[in-house]
């Protein structure tokens, strides 16, 4: 049985590693991902500010720990954008008709459910206008300026897509951070 377990773990590690490598490749430089373990303390105290990258600011909802439509949801610790969960998508899927971004920034967020720190990949969904009534969030735990591009949430991450209009953002677990 330890074989099965180790295979499961290896698979997870493999995905994490290849994810980090892919990100590094896409960013065309040494990825900041490799340094994340020691860099970030994880999103212990979730901060939810009424922020604005493009449109009117929205007050963050008083969501529960498990409410993925709320800015204080644990995965959103470095998310700057509209939540796809409030626009017909989910936390891992773009709304219908949008284009999945091919590059991404990442954060390291602590899941209060298992006290693990996860590497979260924030993919933008592209090619359409946002819904202005959607939930806009800005949290920047572990966020860094553009010289650490893989951690930077101030650019339009539809930049490498055919269609560059910013629609909304998802938050995928790509691995365990530590």
């Amino acid at each position: 049985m330890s074989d099965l377990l180790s295979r499961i773990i290896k698979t997870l590690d493999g995905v994490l590693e290849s994810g980090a490598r892919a990100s590094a490749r896409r960013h065309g430089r040494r990825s900041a991902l490799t340094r994340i373990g020691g860099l970030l303390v994880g999103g212990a105290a979730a901060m939810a500010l009424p922020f604005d990258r493009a449109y009117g600011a929205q007050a963050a909802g008083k969501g529960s720990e498990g409410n993925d439509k709320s800015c204080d949801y644990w995965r959103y610790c470095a998310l700057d954008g509209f939540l796809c969960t409030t626009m017909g998508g989910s936390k891992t899927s773009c709304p219908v008709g949008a284009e999945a971004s091919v590059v991404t920034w990442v954060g390291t967020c602590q899941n209060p459910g298992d006290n693990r720190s996860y590497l979260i990949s924030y993919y933008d969904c592209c090619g359409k206008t946002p819904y202005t009534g959607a939930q806009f969030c800005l949290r920047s735990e572990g966020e860094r300026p553009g010289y650490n591009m893989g951690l930077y949430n101030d650019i339009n991450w539809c930049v490498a897509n055919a269609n560059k209009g910013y629609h909304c953002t998802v938050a995928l677990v790509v691995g365990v951070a530590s």
Partner: protein
Amino acid sequence: MDSYRKATLVALLALAAQPALADEPIAPETFTVEAALKPGPNLFVASSGWAGAGVINIFSAADLSYKGNYANGFNGQMTISAGGTVGYTASAYPKRIMKGPIEAVLERFDVSTLKTTRDITILPKFILGQAAHGMLQVSADGERAYVQNATPATSVTVVNLKTGKVVSEIPIPGCWTINLAKDGTRFTTLCGDGRFLTVRLGPDGRATGQAYSEKIFDPEKDPLFTHAERVGADLVFVSFSGVFHRVSDAGDTARLVSTYAFAKEIPGGWAPGGYEVMGYNAPNGIIFIAMHPGARDGSHKNPSTEVWAVDLERRTVLYRSMAPGLTHLAVSQDKVPVIFGTNSHGEGLFRYETDPTAKFAAKLTHQVGLRNASYLLAP
């Protein structure tokens, strides 16, 4: 495999499948795109772009929950056809957004996947303005589109949706809005002298003839709103003072069937106001109309104070519901009519349920703080 090992394997597989359990971390996830719009009747709400992209937002008609959108360009128009499954929008894409020559484009999209299925460059004479009724119409067979032009001289661009080509431009000087006949063989438009112009269309979409009606309305004393509802075989318009004009567009010449001054006997100086001022529910033969009191010159765009349920057949105002702030109104074709409204002057998307057993009294059920919403199409 002994039963102990088997049980452990099952447990471990369960762990892997339930990544939220404390013992096993969340498994890496896959990034996807939703394949299709959530099922159920849709409400389409246009927001015409004035400084860039506009958008058609799609809400659940049941509870106004958000379902998705289709982005268009500058000063966009919309229509939905084929039982709500195919969308069309015409809008402008200027070279430098606020400046430079425009490319006017007719886009067709699949409502379920929100994917563009046609992108046709049309005449740049395309009407630049707010989304409204009669600016863009598509034949029932989906083969032909008709687009209002205003340079500000008025004409209609005919587009063959099969070939993706502009077929012709039909001048309609002094006339405004396209009301396509049910069989697609003609369209009717309102003219500044109070007559209606009917343009006959050949099988290729070109005009084969045209005829003006007698004077149907008085554009100086009591102008018609251009919003029209299809009621049976006829079109119903309403005037600024609140007179329904039922017009037959079945023949080569439009014909006034009847008028009904529904607001005349009711004190308070009530009149219709807004843009998409009314919606018709066919199963019950009821028109719901946005009304404001103290009407005077210039109040014809005032948002509603009440929405009135009018029985067209019995010529009766059945009920006056409190429904403030609507400039646009659309009604479902359910047996229990649902009224949707927007306020293009401020904000708000509203859903009212009516009660057929209580004279179609309307009650607010859902509300969304949408801004810049205007023209809407109900299921």
